[in-house]
C-alpha cells in the first residue's frame, strides 16, 4: 500500500480547480468561435481556405529549371507581398500537350499558383506577376482561371455524420467494457479537446488570419483518436484498482492512485508523440505547419483532459450516486 497512496498530484481534492482550469482553457476559443460565427461571411466559425471556397489558378511559363529552394523563395516572396497561403506546383508539359501551351513556344516549366479569388487583369494578378518577375527571368502569364472547391459541403456533412456515428460506437463499446459513466466521460473528453483545438484555430484566424485547409479535418480526427486512447488507459487502471482495492479504499482514493500510477506513462507517451510533431513543426515544411500545430495542441490538451477532466468527471458522478443512495435509504427508513 506504500506506493498506491503516494501521490504527485491530488486529483480528487482539487477537482473544482481542475474543472475551472478546463473552463478557462476553453473560454477564449469558444468566444472566438461564437464571435466568428456571427461576423464571418457564411457564418462559418473558422477562416476557411481555398480547399473549401475555391479560388484562382494562375499559370506562368518560365524558361529555366526550378528546384525546391526556388519554390520556397517564391512562396516566401509571395507571402511577403500579401498573397494569402499560395499553393505552388510545378507543371511539366508533356510531349503531346495541347495547342494552348505550344503557342507560347519555348517554355521549360510552368509555375501554377493557387490562391483565393482574384479577378483577371486586377492588382492581385499584377502583384503576383511582379513577384515572379523578380524571382525568374521573363515569366509569362499563360492563364488565369477560377477553380471550384475541392472539398465541398458534402465532405463536411459526411465527416460530421461519420464522426457522430463513431462516437456512438465508442459509447457502446466503452459501456460494455467499462460503464456508461466512463463512456460519457470519454466522449466529453473528446468534445473538450476538439473544442479547444477548433477554438484555438478560430482565435488564430481572427488574429493571424490563419485559414483551415483540408488537412484540418484530418488533424481533428487525429486529436479525437489520441484523446480517447489516452483516456482509456487511465480508466483501465481505475477499473483494475477497483477490482483489488474497492473494499479498502474510497472511489476518490482509487481515482487518485490510478491517475498517479499512469502519470509516467501519460507524460512519456505524449512526450514521444510531441517530440516528433515539434520536429515537424520547427524543421518541417511551411505548408504543413498549421496541420502539425493543430495536432500539437490536440495532444497536449488530450493529455490534460484524460488526467484532469475525464477522471474528475467520473469521480464527481460516482460521488453523486453515493450521496443519493444513503439519502434514499434514510428516506425509506422514515
Amino acid at each position, binding site marked *: 500500500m506504500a506506493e498506491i497512496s503516494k501521490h504527485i498530484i491530488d486529483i480528487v481534492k482539487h477537482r473544482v480547480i481542475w474543472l475551472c482550469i478546463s473552463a478557462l482553457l476553453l473560454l477564449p476559443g469558444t468566444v472566438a468561435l461564437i464571435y466568428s460565427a456571427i461576423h464571418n461571411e457564411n457564418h462559418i466559425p473558422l477562416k476557411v481556405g481555398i480547399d473549401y471556397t475555391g479560388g484562382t489558378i494562375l499559370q506562368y511559363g518560365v524558361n529555366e529549371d526550378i528546384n525546391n529552394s526556388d519554390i520556397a523563395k517564391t512562396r516566401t516572396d509571395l507571402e511577403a507581398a500579401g498573397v494569402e497561403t499560395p499553393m505552388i506546383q510545378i507543371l511539366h508539359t508533356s510531349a503531346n500537350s495541347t495547342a494552348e501551351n505550344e503557342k507560347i513556344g519555348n517554355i521549360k516549366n510552368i509555375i501554377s499558383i493557387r490562391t483565393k479569388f482574384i479577378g483577371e487583369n486586377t492588382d492581385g494578378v499584377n502583384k503576383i506577376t511582379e513577384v515572379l518577375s523578380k524571382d525568374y527571368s521573363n515569366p509569362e502569364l499563360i492563364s488565369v482561371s477560377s477553380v471550384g472547391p475541392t472539398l465541398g459541403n458534402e*465532405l463536411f456533412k459526411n465527416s460530421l455524420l*461519420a464522426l457522430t456515428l463513431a462516437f456512438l460506437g465508442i459509447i457502446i463499446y466503452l459501456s460494455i467494457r467499462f460503464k456508461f459513466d466512463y463512456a460519457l466521460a470519454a466522449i466529453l473528453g473528446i468534445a473538450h479537446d476538439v473544442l479547444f483545438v477548433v477554438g484555438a484555430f478560430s482565435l488564430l484566424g481572427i488574429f493571424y488570419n490563419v485559414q483551415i485547409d483540408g488537412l484540418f479535418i484530418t488533424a481533428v480526427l487525429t486529436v479525437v483518436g489520441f484523446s480517447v486512447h489516452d483516456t482509456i488507459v487511465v480508466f483501465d487502471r481505475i477499473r483494475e484498482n477497483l477490482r483489488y482495492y474497492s473494499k479498502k479504499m474510497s472511489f476518490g482514493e482509487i481515482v487518485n492512485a490510478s491517475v498517479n500510477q499512469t502519470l509516467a506513462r501519460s507524460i512519456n507517451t505524449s512526450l514521444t508523440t510531441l517530440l516528433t510533431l515539434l520536429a515537424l513543426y520547427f524543421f518541417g515544411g511551411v505548408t504543413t505547419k498549421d496541420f502539425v500545430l493543430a495536432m500539437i495542441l490536440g495532444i497536449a490538451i488530450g493529455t490534460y483532459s484524460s488526467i484532469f477532466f475525464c477522471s474528475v468527471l467520473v469521480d464527481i458522478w460516482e460521488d453523486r450516486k453515493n450521496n443519493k443512495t444513503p439519502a434514499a435509504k434514510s428516506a425509506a427508513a422514515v
Partner: protein
Amino acid sequence: MKNKIIMFWVIVLIVIASIVTIFVKPTKLGLDLVGGSRLVIEAETTKAVPQITQDVMNRLQFAIENRVNKLGVAETVVQQVGEKRLLIEIPNVTDLKEAKAFLGETAQLEFKKEGKGPNGEQIWVETGLTGQDLAKSTLSTDSTGQWVVSLEFNGAGSKKFADLTRDLVGQQMAIFFDGELQSAPVIREPIYGGKAQISGGDSGFEYSEAERMVNLLNAGALPVPAKIVEENTVGPTLGADSIAKSKTAGIIGLSIVMLFMIAYYRLPGLIADIALMIYSVILFALFKAIPVTLTLAGIAGFILSIGMAVDANILIFERTKEELRAGRNLFTAINSGFDRAFTSIFDSNMTTIITCVILYLLGTSIVKGFALTLALGVIVSMFSAITITKNFMHLIFGTGELKYPQLFGLRKSEIGKGFEASETKRENARFGILD
C-alpha cells in the same frame, strides 16, 4: 523457451517477406505528396445541349468523379475551372492512359428508330429514350454464348421502352453507343418489364469491349461530350520544397523518440526501438501490398499509429518495472507486465479500430485514407508490441532474478520496496507466481 525460438523465426520470416514486398511493389503516393497528372477537359455543346450552363457543368463533374472512382484511382481531384472546363488531377502517372481513354468517352446511349431524311433517304431518328433512363447495366451472355450487355430501365424508362417497342413492332430499333451503331434488332413484339440486351451486332462483343461498356453505362453518361485540352504532369500540391523539409524533420523527430526510449527505459527501450523498426517495415509493406495511396492525411494516421505503438511499449515497460520493484523475478515480471498492460492496450485500440471502421465506411476521400492507415497501423502495432517486444524481452532477459536493475533504469534500492502487487489466485497461477 522452444516456443519463443519458433516465434522468433516466424518474426524473422515476416520481416523478410515485408522487405521483399517493399522492394518489389511500387509506392503509391497521393497528389499532395508527389503530384501526378493534370488534365483539363472542356465541355462541348451538342445539338441537344446548345449551351453549357452551370447545371450541365455540375452534372458533368458528378459523372466524371463517378468514373474516376470506378477506375479505382484513389485521391483524385475534380474541380471546375472557369465556365466550361474541369480540372482533373490524378496521382500516379501510370494510370493516365487508361484514365484518358475513360474520360474521352461520353457514354451516350441512344435508342433510335427508322425515319426519313429531308431528301427522302433513310436515317435513324431519336426516340427520346437514352442512357438516362437506365437503372443499371450488367454483363451477361446470351443463348449462343456471346457476351451481351444487359440493360435494366428505371420506372420512367421501362414505360418509354414499352411504348416504343409497341409502336415499332415489325420495324428495326437501333441502339447507338457514343454515336456508333451497336445493333439494330427487328422488334417482334412489345417488350414489357423494362429489360433489354445489346448484342455486339454480327461480329459480337469481345469480353473487354462489353465489360467497358457496362462500366461506362453504370458510371453514368456525360451530359455533353468533353475534350481534353490540357495535359501536364504536376508537382505535389504541398510543394516539393515543403515535403523535402518535412521528410528530414520526420526523421529527426523519430530519432529523438528512439533516443528517448533508450535513455528512459534502457535495454527494454532499445528492444522497443527495434520492434518499432520492424513495425514500420511490416506496415509499409502492407501499404504497398494493398495498395494504399498515401497522402498527408494517411501519413497523419501513420504517425498517430506510431504514437500508439510506442505507447503500447511504454505501458508494458511501466507495468514490468512495477512488477520488478515488487521483487518479482524477470520471467514473471515480464509476463505479468504484459498481461496487465494488455487490457488497456486492447480497449484503447479497439475503440480506435471501431472509429476507423465507421470513418472508412461513411467518410469520403481524405477521411477514408486517414481511417485506413490508422486502422492498419493499430492492428500491426498490437502485433508488434504484444508479440515482437515480448518475444525479444523473454529471449534476451531469460528467466531468473534481475541481476542488473540498471538495465531497466531501476536502482537496486528500489527493488522489493515498492508497490505491493495484488492479484487474484487465478492470476497468480497464470503468471507463475509462487509467493
